[in-house]
């Protein structure tokens, strides 16, 4: 037992270690998160320092003036400098003093006269408030810090100039000015809809005023908005509930969205102006929901309220198109707008979506799913009995909890309570949501254990939310106890009992489940996308799945699980995508050849353009699937037609001179891997097999038993020879193509011209013209001035006239596009020629088959002639051996035939090819195109009887 126990201990120990290795943030990220600073703020310098904050309005300062003595708290801690902020943190107690000072608020920085050895600065702010900084540490480091601060101040002049306008928008500033500077008729800055439509809840005026006074006092002593010291009191004031009038400002201060607003004062209006009148999916979805956002709040039944909501939501959808718009954002934004101006709400919503609840509203809602998982884990940990009950009755906890998180309790609780939760949420972060959610379950735990289906479970909680204002202990004898409302009880449970749920715990849990969740989403998205794929004719389902993987792997910026980044493909990505699985697009030595690169570019551009159905310069997955489906057709003619159509830009079924040249370049590019011997095509493969077989037969002197032939090994072949042969064959094909193209090109327009001339002139002259025309026609290939065209039929004929090109469209091209290999196997190796040869040798069965054919043919020939074998004969003697061999061999032979079914036609080809190879260079050049198109029947018949004669 103890052994098991220790094992278990060890296991949990390893779990702990694993948890600690969760993806860690950089120092700057941590720093920004802690002080809610914008993305640009990274630490330039930091130093130890003593700091005093002496507010210009402070009561103690008034005293000081009278008594002529400085009196202020001195905090010891660390001072950080970022491009726009001075941040100070008490070294001993974080919550006793955190100062966040935007450098725009600094009016003057002086060296303090009273310090002889250590460096001291007096920083005077716009309001007259002074910050005394006494540096601790080496003098030159302190000097360095000051230098950096000076730079920051210089770089910030523009923002500093805009400061007064910005301050006018802050309610705190208004309170201070009105009460301290005797500006009695100063007007309150614009605020949320609550200013006009009343704030939710029934706080009495007196209570609101009392709370406001507390905040006024706080601002007076500790500064406000862009230059504030946060201490215990700050937190306490928030916990008791922020007065509605300054709630907006406190939210933006706590969330740090105020810093974003200050940094980009015009962005909100600019986004709206730039996108005015534009529409998008998000905009349409927003329109559907505008009237469905907190409809119980009166402002949202008016055009004014709806309009504000529309502007905030659409502006955000333009700012962050990855998120766009997600249902529930309308409710959150509507909540913000009660207390905030549009601009404030816009920035607050941004901060919320990006930092507080990342991924909640993304296109795949992975953040929401993740936090539901995390929440369930917490329930399981903290309330095992309830969790067991939920499992037992198969209750979908997420039906109740998902809206809590997604709409931040706005749809679940009455508004006045939801905003109180928001007060704390903005101060403490997303752990607040977990704390409150857990507290709700804890408080209702006993009732929930009675619920045996989802309906009852939901009803209990619904009822609870509707009675939050009622006493939590209505039967208590103690009147004080009776006064405690259910909401107060909820807050206490959430923030006392579930205090144990810390932000880092949430982060750890998130990273624990993140991969699983993303994986699930990716699977789901893939399934859905494949389900809605266009119908394909040549690609199988598993190939579509591979293409899907390759497609999204190529678009590095697109994260499927998170639903961010464009899911479309531009040209460079397209090239990289094809390179993953198309032999002719893989990087090769030819890439160093500028002509080749140009050919490649030209061909791929045409392909891209052809596939780009929406003509936006981007391909969707459907475009790619549709295009590939055409490219990999098994039908020879279809394949040729498709290739032709790539070059027939105007779709008139004819290629002009230029296009003919380009199509030949395209062919050159496409066949490059075979031309350079990187791969072998079916013809070469066949001849290699033949050659191995021949060698084998020679070595064994014709007395081979079939059992020996099964796996020939140790055979060496002359790679270079086959490479050269193949290369020669493709070069020849290319030159033949061009030659034939111009030979068979039809000078359509030229003919017309001649005819016209014919009509207008008398006979004699016409005759000479005709003669001239004939000679013209003959030399047309050399004459660039006369337009000539090739139509599809001609093109097909020319392609079919060449065995390599015919094979290209019937097989080689299809085989070079490896859509059937899954992503993981395709990158394992770039199949080099060597591997190909290895493959052939290893595929003993086929070679053995060849050998057998030879052996058989030798055996039959044995009595007649020499053992010298002719590849032509062996191929054809194949059929013969089946007749003469024993029964077993016969069946094997038949098997082989079926596996080589498509090769029937190919075998014929290989015959003519070998023949050509045998005839040497001269005859190659003479070979007429038509002969191959319609192989001379006499010739093949000649061969056939020969064989029969051999047999007899």
């Amino acid at each position: 037992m103890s052994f098991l126990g220790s094992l278990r201990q060890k296991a949990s120990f390893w779990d702990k270690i694993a948890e600690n290795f969760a993806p860690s943030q950089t120092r700057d990220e941590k720093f920004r998160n802690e002080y809610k600073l914008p993305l640009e703020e990274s630490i330039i310098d930091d130093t130890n320092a003593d700091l005093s904050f002496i507010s210009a309005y402070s009561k103690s300062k008034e005293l000081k003036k009278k008594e002529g003595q400085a009196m202020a708290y001195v905090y010891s801690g660390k001072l950080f400098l970022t491009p726009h902020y001075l941040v100070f943190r008490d070294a001993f107690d974080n919550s006793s003093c955190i100062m966040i000072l935007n450098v725009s608020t600094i009016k003057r920085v002086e060296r303090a006269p009273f310090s002889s050895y250590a460096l001291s600065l007096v920083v005077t702010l716009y309001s007259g408030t002074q910050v005394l900084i006494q540096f601790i540490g080496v003098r030159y480091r302190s000097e360095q810090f000051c230098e950096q601060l000076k730079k920051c101040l210089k770089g910030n002049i523009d923002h500093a100039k805009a400061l007064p306008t910005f301050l006018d928008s802050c309610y705190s500033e208004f309170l201070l000015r009105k009460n301290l500077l005797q500006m009695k008729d100063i007007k309150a800055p614009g605020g949320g809809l609550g200013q006009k439509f009343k704030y939710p809840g029934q706080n009495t005026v007196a209570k609101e005023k009392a709370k406001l006074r507390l905040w006024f006092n706080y601002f007076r002593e500790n500064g406000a908005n862009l230059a504030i010291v946060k201490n215990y009191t700050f937190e306490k004031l928030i916990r008791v509930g922020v007065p509605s009038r300054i709630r907006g400002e406190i939210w933006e201060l706590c969330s740090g969205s105020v810093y974003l607003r200050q940094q980009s004062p015009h962005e909100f209006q600019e986004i709206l102006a730039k996108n005015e009148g534009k529409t998008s999916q998000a905009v349409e979805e927003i329109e559907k929901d505008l009237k469905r956002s907190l409809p119980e709040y009166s402002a949202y039944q008016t055009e004014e309220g709806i309009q504000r909501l529309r502007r905030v939501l659409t502006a955000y959808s333009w700012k962050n198109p990855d998120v766009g718009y997600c249902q529930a954002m309308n409710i959150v934004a509507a909540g913000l707008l009660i207390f905030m101006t549009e601009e404030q709400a816009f920035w607050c919503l941004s901060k919320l979506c990006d930092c507080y609840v990342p991924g909640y509203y993304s296109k795949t809602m992975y953040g929401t799913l993740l936090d539901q998982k995390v929440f369930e884990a917490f329930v399981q940990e903290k309330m095992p009995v309830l969790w067991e009950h939920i499992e037992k009755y198969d209750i979908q906890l997420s039906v109740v909890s998902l809206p809590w998180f997604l709409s931040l309790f706005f749809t679940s609780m009455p508004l006045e309570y939801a905003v109180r939760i928001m007060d704390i949420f903005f101060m403490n972060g997303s752990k607040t949501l977990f704390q409150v959610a857990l507290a709700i379950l804890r408080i209702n735990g006993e009732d929930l254990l009675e619920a045996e289906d989802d309906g009852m479970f939901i009803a209990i909680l619904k009822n609870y939310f509707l009675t939050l204002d009622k006493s939590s202990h209505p039967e208590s004898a103690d009147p004080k106890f009776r006064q405690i409302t259910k909401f107060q009880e909820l807050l206490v449970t959430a923030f006392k009992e579930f205090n144990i749920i810390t932000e880092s715990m949430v982060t750890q849990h998130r990273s624990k489940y993140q991969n699983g969740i993303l994986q699930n989403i990716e699977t789901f998205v893939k399934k859905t996308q494949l389900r809605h794929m266009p119908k394909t004719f040549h690609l199988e389902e598993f190939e579509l799945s591979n293409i899907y993987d390759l497609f999204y792997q190529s678009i590095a910026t697109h994260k499927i699980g998170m639903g961010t980044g464009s899911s479309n493909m531009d040209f460079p990505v397209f090239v990289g995508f094809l390179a993953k699985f198309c032999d002719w697009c893989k990087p090769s030595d030819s890439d160093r050849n500028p002509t080749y690169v140009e050919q490649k570019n030209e061909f791929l551009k045409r392909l891209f353009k052809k596939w780009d159905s929406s003509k936006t310069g981007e391909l969707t997955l459907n475009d790619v699937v549709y295009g590939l489906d055409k490219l990999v057709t098994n039908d020879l003619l279809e394949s040729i037609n498709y290739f032709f159509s790539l070059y027939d830009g105007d779709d008139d079924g004819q290629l002009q001179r230029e296009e003919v040249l380009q199509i030949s370049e395209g062919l050159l590019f496409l066949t490059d891997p075979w031309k350079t011997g990187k791969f072998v095509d079916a013809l070469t493969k066949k001849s290699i097999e033949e050659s191995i077989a021949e060698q084998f037969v020679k070595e064994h002197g014709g007395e081979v038993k079939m059992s020996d032939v099964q796996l020939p090994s140790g055979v060496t072949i002359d790679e270079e020879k086959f490479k050269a042969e193949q290369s020669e064959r493709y070069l020849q094909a290319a030159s033949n193509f061009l030659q034939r193209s111009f030979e068979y090109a039809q000078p359509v327009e030229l003919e017309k011209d001649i005819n016209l001339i014919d009509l207008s002139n008398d006979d004699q002259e016409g005759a000479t013209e005709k003669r001239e025309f004939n000679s013209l026609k003959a030399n047309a290939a050399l004459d660039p001035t006369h337009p000539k065209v090739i139509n599809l039929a001609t093109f097909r004929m020319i392609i079919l006239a060449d065995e390599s090109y015919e094979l290209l469209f019937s097989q080689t091209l299809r085989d070079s596009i490896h859509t059937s290999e899954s992503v993981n196997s395709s990158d394992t190796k770039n199949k080099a020629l060597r591997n190909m040869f290895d493959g052939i040798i290893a595929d003993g069965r086929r070679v053995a088959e060849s050998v057998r054919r030879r052996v058989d043919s030798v055996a039959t020939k044995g009595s007649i002639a020499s053992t010298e074998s002719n590849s032509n004969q062996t191929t054809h003697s194949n059929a013969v051996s089946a007749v003469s061999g024993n029964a077993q061999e016969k069946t094997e032979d038949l098997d082989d035939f079926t596996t080589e079914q498509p090769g029937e036609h190919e075998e014929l080809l290989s015959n003519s090819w070998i023949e050509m190879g045998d005839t040497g260079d001269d005859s190659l050049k003479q070979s007429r195109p038509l002969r191959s198109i319609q192989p001379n029947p006499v010739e093949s018949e000649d061969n056939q009887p020969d064989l029969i004669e051999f047999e007899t």
Partner: protein
Amino acid sequence: MNSSVTSIKLVLLGEAAVGKSSIVLRFVSNDFSENKEPTIGAAFLTQRVNIGEQTVKFEIWDTAGQERFASLAPMYYRNAQAALVVYDITKPQSFIKARHWVKELHEQASKGIVIALVGNKLDMIENGGERKVAKEEAEKLAEEEGLLFFETSAKSGENVNEVFLGIGEKIPIKKPGEQANEQSGLRITDDQRVDLTNSVNGPVRSAGCNC
């Protein structure tokens, strides 16, 4: 009266703002509200009705319509015996989405799920709005895919109960012994049931969840 209760797990799917929640609200509470907040995630409601001799308890899972909530849907249509795929007859896009849902259900949901295709917002046409999805087109889809088909108005209540009645009739009634939710079935009293066969357009009282 027969005291056995058959539970039918039913899920509503369809594009955002086609009226899924409104159909449920009409069926469960015989009520309508013009600007209902969008469903966040999903909602769950129940309603009991009498179909002939049988009491049927509908356990209704009403889902969020926005595209990005689609990944949550399997959670709710898991084990569902019936589904309403709802579209808005004035929004062609919502009909395309309905096709997708039908396809997904056929592939992913439990075998033998009874699906009803429901074209909602019939009242808009009666009030001079333009119909954008032809009845014939929807009928064709229903026939091809073996769906029940209804056109309804959650606003006026037209045809809403018939949808549920149609589903209730198509689902094989289980013997009481096989009843999974036997206990909850015993809890109901006669006055909570509504006989759909007799009062098609009559108010349907909510059995609510506090039963």
